Each structure stands twice: as C-alpha cells, then as structure tokens.
C-alpha cells in the first residue's frame, strides 16, 4: 500500500501536516513546524537565556510566541519579580503580540483557548507540562522543556517522536455531579501514572461526545498525569460552538481513520463511576470520594488549569450557596482567568463564595505547585481541584494533597473533611 493511503491517527495526521508530508509512521522522529510556542514565568527565563545563545536575535514569529506570567505572578517575592521583569523585557524587545500582563493574564491553559489562540489541527508546544490541555480542541499539543522552547522560538520548528495512540471509549450516562475530572481521575487510576507514557491518548465515545468543553479541557489537561504526550478529542458540534465566537472558522480538522491500529483500546462504562478522589502521593491512587469521609482537612483549593473554569465555579457556587465553610478550613477559590472571574462575578458566584467564607484570589497557578496563595505547613492536608499530589507539591514535604473535582472540594469545605455533595446539601 502507498504510504499516503495507510490509515493514520489524529496524532500522526497533525504531525505529518506540520512537516509537509502525507504520512508519518509511529516511532519516527520528525522535525515539524509549530503553530504556537508558549512559556511562563518559571520556564521562559531559562528559555530566554538559551535563546540568546542560539543567536538568531529575533523570534521566528512575534504572533506565534505566547508569554504568560501566571505561576508566581502577581510577583510573590523579589526573585519572582526579577524573573517576571526579565520575561517582560524580552516580550517588549521582541514585540511579542501575545504577552499578557497582570490584569489581562490568566492561567495559561485556560487563557489561550478562551482567546481563540489555539485552534483544531494546530501543533502547539509549551514549556509547561499541562500544555496537553489544548487536545480538547483537536490540537496536537504537548509540554516540552525550556531548551525546546528556546529552539522553537528561534526556528519555529522542533523534533517530535510520532507517538502511538491509546483509544479510550467512554459510554453510559453519568451520575449527578460527575464531571471530566472524575472521568480522567478514574482513567488514570485504571492505567497508572505511566499507563500512557510517550503515547497519545484519544478520548472518544458517546459519553464524552456530550461532555462540555470545560470538562474536556480538564480531561486533556491531565493526560500528562498518565505520562501521555497528547490528550486529544475529535472536533464535534460542541467544539465548533465553543470556537464560533473565537475564530473565523479557518482551521483544519483531522480525524483518526476508522481502520487505524491503536496500541490499545479501553472501553470504559461510565454509568457506575462515582465521584473520584486521588489520595497522596500519586494521581493514580484513586478512590471513591464517599469512602474517604474520615479524612480531615485544613485547606480547600478550587481553581488551576485543571478546574478553574466557569463550569467549576458554577458547581462550587451551587454547593456553597447559603452554606458556611467549616471554621477550621481555609477555602481558596481561584478563577483561572480575568474573564472567568468577571463571569463568576456577574452570575453572583463570587458573592456566594465570600458569604460562605471562601477567599477569592486573582488568577494564578500559586497554590497548585506550592508557590504562594495557599502553601501548606507541616502535617497539613488539602483537598484540591488541581492536578498533582506528589510529596511536597503544595508546600511542606510532610503535607498532603487529595485531588478531586469541584463538587467534592466544595462539599469538603463545608464538612471540614472529605465529603460528597449529598452530605452537605
């Protein structure tokens, strides 16, 4: 068979398209043109230093390099301020179109889709492991390091190994409160933290075809927590609806060929999936939330690139409305972007949060990685809608993080221990 006619996955097709070919084979190393190169205040400073060593002087395209100070911004200390300043000066010097200052910025992986900067069929790299989030838009999108970003900023190209694909088919109707977070935690629990190492995860099936974009972003976001390179959804009516106000429709849609050979196929019946929690210290250490009712907590975080979108805010507000956060709990809510913050304000969510005793923060990655805005002390425990629960992730090496979706986090804030919504409503 002519290579051109061989069946290919979405991952193969997007990579092939970006190196000007009809076909690339799995395992092959290719040099491909990238559509977006992303960096933040943690990873870009190193990338800028390396970029300067390459010596091209200018970035390959001022409109395709995206710079977001979100991790330790608004600046948490003098050193972070220096890093943000270094990055800001680079962005000005290079006349970067998509530099987002405090006040306009948001958590990068919520911000870029919101602004229509990533489109279906794009090949995106970012010096942040959760760059895989944009797979929800039918893009091939993955996290890389600072040196990779330096090279991509200079040349517009990067090397990729074409990944094999694992297909996940979700079927069955979802129980109340179940969101994309529960589906992805369940999936990681099933396959393990290296269950998709180097692989593209393709999410499909009747259940996810009804899933909101916000829930899809959450699922793609955590592909890396199973070791995945991409976490891709096919473009459908829900994707197109999301993009209607954000693009001129000028994008390319790639679909996996029906007869393509997958590395593995998982059929997941969702009808029995309950609210999920990943216990310390691995995202794969998943349990049913209702089985953890004796776990007391000190802090709740609702936010992050995983669950800081308007759907998450809405779920938290529904549960917290008219109720009070337990007296021993610090509940921190972080809308992921300024627009989400504003929408939450207009919908009355922010008032609900404040009345219930939550603190509402400006967008930042802050507590997720133990940076600022909610660092844990020795022996403290949090339940958080973030993505990692490794040792010391949110602060002291002897602190603990439990991962959940927004409903369990909000219910736990009220109960003062891990709880499901039915226990507090």
């Amino acid at each position, binding site marked *: 068979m002519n290579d051109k006619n061989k069946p290919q996955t979405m991952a193969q097709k997007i990579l092939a398209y970006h190196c000007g070919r009809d076909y690339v084979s799995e395992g092959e*190393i290719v040099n491909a043109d990238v559509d977006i190169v992303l960096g933040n205040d*943690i*990873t870009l*400073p*190193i990338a800028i*230093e*390396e970029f300067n*060593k*390459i*010596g*091209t002087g200018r970035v390959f395209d001022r409109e395709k390099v995206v710079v977001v100070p979100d*991790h*330790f911004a608004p600046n*948490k*200390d003098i*050193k*972070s301020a*220096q*890093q943000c300043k270094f990055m800001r000066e680079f962005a000005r010097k290079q006349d970067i179109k998509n530099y987002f200052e405090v006040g306009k910025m948001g958590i990068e992986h919520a911000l870029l889709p919101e602004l229509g900067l990533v489109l279906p069929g794009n090949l995106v790299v*970012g*010096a*942040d*492991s959760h*760059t895989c989030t944009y797979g929800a838009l039918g893009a091939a999108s993955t*996290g*890389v*390091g*600072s*040196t*990779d970003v*330096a*090279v991509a900023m*200079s*040349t517009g190209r990067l*090397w990729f*190994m074409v990944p094999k694909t694992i297909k996940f088919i979700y079927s069955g109707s979802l129980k109340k409160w179940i969101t994309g977070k529960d589906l992805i935690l369940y999936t990681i629990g099933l396959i393990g*933290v*290296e269950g998709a*190492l*180097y692989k593209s995860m393709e999410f499909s099936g009747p259940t996810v075809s009804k899933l909101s974009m916000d829930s899809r972003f959450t699922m793609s976001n955590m592909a*890396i927590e199973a*070791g995945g*390179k991409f976490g891709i959804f096919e473009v459908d009516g829900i994707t197109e609806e999301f993009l209607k106000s954000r693009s001129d429709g000028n994008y390319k849609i790639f679909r996996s060929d029906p007869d393509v050979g997958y590395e593995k196929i998982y059929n997941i019946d969702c009808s029995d999936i309950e609210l999920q929690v990943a216990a310390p210290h*691995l995202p794969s250490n998943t349990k049913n939330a209702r089985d953890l009712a004796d776990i007391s907590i000190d802090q709740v975080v609702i936010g992050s690139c995983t669950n800081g979108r308007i759907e998450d805010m809405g779920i938290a507000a529904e549960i917290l409305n008219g109720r009070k956060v337990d007296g021993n709990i610090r509940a921190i809510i972080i809308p992921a972007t300024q627009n989400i913050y504003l929408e939450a304000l207009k919908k009355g969510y922010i008032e609900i949060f404040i009345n219930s005793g939550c603190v509402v923060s400006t967008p930042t990655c802050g507590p997720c*990685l*133990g*940076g600022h805005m909610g*660092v844990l002390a020795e022996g403290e425990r949090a339940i958080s809608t973030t993505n*990692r629960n*490794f*040792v*010391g*992730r949110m602060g002291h*090496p002897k602190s603990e993080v439990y991962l959940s979706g927004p409903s369990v986090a909000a219910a736990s804030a009220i109960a003062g221990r891990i709880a499901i919504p039915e226990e507090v409503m």
Partner: protein
Amino acid sequence: MIIRERAIKYGDNVDTDVIIPARYLNTTEDRELASHCFEGLDKDFKEKVKERKIIVAGYNFGCGSSREHAPLSIKTSGVKAVIAASFARIFFRNSINIGLPVMSSSEAAGFIQDGDDLEVDLSSGQIKDITQDKVFNVNPLPEFIQGIIKSGGYINFTRENLKK
C-alpha cells in the same frame, strides 16, 4: 565516553517536585538550583553525590512538571548519568537537550544495588555492574538524538544546523 562511578539508588515515580520543589524555581541560577536537588526525597543526597555520581532509579523517573530545572539541578550537582527502568517523556527530552546522559533499562535498574560500582559506556550502551559482575546492553538511542548528544546539547546542535 566511559563513566566509572558508584550508584545512588531510588525507587519508582521519582517526580520533578521532589527533584526540585517549585518554591525554588524563582531563579535560573544552576548552583542555587543544585543546592536543593532531591531535597524532597533524600536529605543526604548532597553528601552522597560527592562520592557517587550515577543515579539508578525505577519506572517513570522525572514524572510531573516540564521544569528543566530538574535535570539541570541533577547535572549541576555533579551527576554523570541517570539509569532508570523508564523515563517520563519531558524529563527525557530535557536531559538530552541539556546534555545529561540518560539510559533506559528495566533489567539494569532492577538489578543494580545502592552503592554498586558501575562502568557505563554511553556510546555502546553498555552498563557494567562491577560490584556484582554483571553486564547489561541498552538499546542505542535513535540516530537523531545521538546527534544532539554529540553536539553537546540541543542549543549547539541548532547553532550548527543554522550555519549549514
């Protein structure tokens, strides 16, 4: 290149948060990053690495964040190579890009004991455990990746290619 060093052994899923906690990522200064290397996993690493410069670990080494500070802090600490049963994708890329030698072998990683004397030949892919008198042969890296390593990292490799 042949490296003769003793092993420091760690387990599975050594993540980037224990290699270099995020609270230290407010700098790009490699010496400062190295001073916190493995702080979340092994308080004695700084002492151990004076005598032993090959890390041997289990599956999924370097999982988690894309932070290049992780391989950079390991390299700056004086570590000459990392042998693991498997590597997380981004960590693997980052190590190659900055010139930290990495080798995947579940057999070698499972067999080698903490403190063993090792001789590693990066070009042939041979790992010799001198203490236990055993030899492992690792699949060579793809040619393209070997090219990056030969150039001394991705930056030099890119500079050379831009000149062509």
